[in-house]
């Protein structure tokens, strides 16, 4: 078990590193850099060269990457090439805002989809299942920006209960942000939930057909006991990985949805930083996203470990 998690941990570190390398090379391959973006199209070549020197962009990319990596390992992520402030501070405050959005999405989204998936699986082919499955199918096939637009139309234009775009800036307090978090969160939940519901439904149906659930029923157990004690742990297992994958997807979805609602989070910051080729900011965001992905997967593995006694007690250690 210890070796299992040690291996996973090693793999996680590798994933995060790989992500930074990939993002670094991707930004590198884009036309222009921070100097050209800052100075605009009409800048003279010499001005650009001076700017480059100031920003340290004249060094070869490989050495720049390792300099960055060396500092990053000591917790120094450098300063923004554009604003000049500490990247950690800027990303940090955006991250707090995004965490609010993501946290609400994940908690509500996962609970809701597990419940809906369970209900659909238990009422297989009857009306609750048919309505839930149809909705999930719609959620899967419609991209998040369409969902976002529909939500805005419904809840801030026809029935104006939520603001359509966020006016609060980057440094707004959480209580200022709270009213504007629901629509972006709603859009993310819709898309996130679809996959989890489908998976949960399928695995509930599979487990319902299993011999042990049949036996649990024939033992005279109440329906709630059959569902919660006998069925749910086994049905959750295959769903866990889908949950982890979807949370990883959320990292991308957040970018789209945040920029639609002008939500002052990491996603919005990311788009801005890519436009200005602000490499230190992009890299830190990359590290944070990759960490989210990796931590989600580790948590999924750990949850599987808790749910599945076969993993906890292998047959050989009798």
């Amino acid at each position, binding site marked *: 078990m210890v070796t299992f998690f040690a291996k996973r941990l090693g793999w996680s570190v590798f994933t995060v590193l790989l992500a930074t390398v990939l993002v670094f090379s991707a930004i590198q391959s884009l036309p222009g850099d921070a100097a050209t973006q800052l100075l605009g199209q009409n800048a003279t070549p010499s001005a650009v060269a001076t700017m480059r020197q100031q920003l340290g962009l004249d060094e070869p990319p490989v050495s720049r990457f390792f300099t960055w990596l060396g500092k990053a390992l000591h917790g120094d992520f450098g300063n923004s090439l554009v604003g000049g402030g500490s990247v950690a501070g800027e990303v940090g405050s955006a991250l707090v805002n995004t965490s609010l959005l993501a946290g609400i999405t994940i908690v509500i989204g996962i609970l809701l989809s597990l419940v809906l998936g369970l209900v659909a699986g238990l009422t297989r082919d009857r009306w609750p299942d048919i309505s839930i499955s149809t909705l999930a199918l719609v959620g899967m096939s419609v991209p998040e920006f369409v969902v976002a637009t529909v939500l805005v139309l419904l809840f801030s234009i026809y029935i104006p209960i939520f603001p359509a775009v966020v006016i609060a800036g980057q440094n707004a307090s959480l209580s200022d942000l709270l009213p504007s978090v629901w629509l972006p969160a709603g859009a993310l939940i819709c898309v996130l939930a679809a996959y989890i519901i489908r998976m949960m439904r399928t695995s509930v149906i599979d487990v319902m057909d299993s011999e042990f659930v049949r*036996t649990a029923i024939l033992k005279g*157990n109440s329906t709630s006991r059959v569902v919660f004690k006998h069925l749910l742990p086994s049905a959750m297992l295959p769903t866990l990985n889908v949950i982890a994958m979807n949370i990883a997807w959320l990292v991308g979805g957040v970018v789209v949805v945040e920029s639609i609602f002008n939500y002052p989070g990491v996603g919005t910051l990311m788009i801005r930083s890519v436009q200005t080729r602000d490499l230190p900011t992009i890299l830190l965001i990359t590290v944070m996203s990759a960490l989210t992905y990796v931590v989600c997967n580790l948590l999924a593995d750990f949850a599987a470990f808790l749910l599945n006694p076969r993993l906890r007690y292998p*047959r050989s250690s009798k």
Partner: protein
Amino acid sequence: MTIDAADTIDEATILNGTDIVRIQNLSVSYLSGKRQVDVLKDVTLQLRRGHVLGLVGESGSGKSTLASALLGSLRSTSFVSNGSVHVAGQDVFALAPRALRRLRTAEVAMVPQNAGNALTPTMKIGEQIAEVLHHLKGNKAAQRARAEELLRLVRLPNPGPALDRYPHQFSGGQQQRIGIAMALAANPSLLVLDEPTTGLDVVTQAAILDLLMELQETMGMSMVMVSHDLGVIDKMCTDIALLRKGAVVESGMTRSVLAQPQHAYTRGLIDSVPRIDTPGIPPGMDQAAIDAGTVREGAVELYIRTPPTKAKPVLSVRDLTIDYRRKPVPGTGPTVQDVSFEVNAGEIVALVGESGSGKSTIANAIAGLQKSEGGQMSLTGSGDESANHLRGGGNLARTVSSRPKSLRQAVQLIFQNADTSLNPRHSVRTAIARPLKLFGVKGATVERALEEVELPASFAKRLPGQLSGGQRQRVGIARAIAAGPSLVLADEVVSALDVSVQSSILRLMDTLSRDKDIGFLFITHDLAVVRSIADRVVVLYLGRIVEDGTVEEIFSDTSHPYTRLLLDSVIELGDDHKAKAQAVRDEIPDAPPELGCPFASRCPIVRDVCRTVVPPTIQVSDTHNIECHADVSELRPSIPAL
């Protein structure tokens, strides 16, 4: 008026008094499109309290449907189209959900066919038993104590710590014991058992049945037991009902029905059972004759196989050693050690032993699916193809991916479960055409391969789901034979089949071995099947050969103590079940001992030397070897003690 009253009393006493089960004109159906298909047809049966009813029939005859109807449970698409089921005086299909649950917690309990699948994998054993103990609700300590007591009752080793273990931490036989304990927890007046020992090997089966018998007698429980094994029914049941296509064709007292069957179906089933005391393959069932109702008279005509006359080895295994252990575990030896045997062209050699004895491991090593740690395995080729095989050196030491094609072609496997080894989405044609194309077999066609296994050419179009169990197994054989092998490894190929189908598959293997000079390594735990088809037998225990010889020699009076245990555990129709010695039947250990005789921990005639020194070979004859420290005279059955 008076008559009415008498009637009511009568009805009540019947329902609550003498009869625990009353099934009246029960029909169960499902809809296939608009058409109503009957799974059970007009079944009427009674069972008196304290009696044991056996439900017998071929697969698909409706046994399981009838059994679960006793618990008021049907498949979700099935419904009761007529009749009723009363258990302990209650009309189970008329009960409200709460009352039905009460019936299931208090009156009827089910022991599932495969406890391995029927125990919830994510719950501790103790908790799964405790949830049935409704009368102790809320009292955790009392529930635990009772659960432990139940596990002790079914003789699970270490019942206390077992409560905190999960199902996968137990062996198949232990899981079945736990399943029985769980069913007994509710103190049911009726225990329903659906094939409770079918997946288990003879020794475990005998132990579980003895246990059930004892529990039934001491607790005065009524039981309904489903089985396709007439020997088991004969041992366990006072009453019997034979089901065919959903209808009861014959019922009555077990002994008299089995001794003098009135229905052709019963006769046919009895005649299809191979016996350990008589060589030969029984005739298959003549379904047309049964439909016509002709009951056969006189003795059964068994087909006696003639072993090949000349010994022309195809497979030679020398000192094969296989070790699964990643690091040495003190006190244990390798999984398979120093196994040597031969298979000749046209010969059927049986490899027998309990599960866990290493049969499949050896077959997998020969097939190249498992790597071996020591010894030699070689294929010597047969007939005119020998040159072909020799090109690959005939050396089977390498695993399948690094074997030359000709060698892969020459060794073919047939699996236990034809259902899982055939791709459900591929037609029979695709399945058989694959090896033909892969090995470029000259002049062979799918049709020819089907003809060889006695299936019509039209079957090529079918999908595995459209075949019966026996037909699927034939396709599995056709696929193996199509490649033109000289050696076929057949792993438990008839174990899952009805006896009625079994004999025709055995006949087919006999024909193929003779006509094509194919050597068969036939793996099974069913000794009666071994007796009917094998030429030679190798008895394996914990990965070591304990005895080998011709089939007559293995079934003769002189046997290794382990072979004796296997033979004594076989339950046959017409045995004197009560008198049969109750052998020491504790379970096969997890791993073989490092030193001495593998059987020492279970052997009734063990001596000190057995625990340290590898037993010598006793040569009973040129062909019959027994590995044992005891004297030959001790290897004959002892006269039963007074």
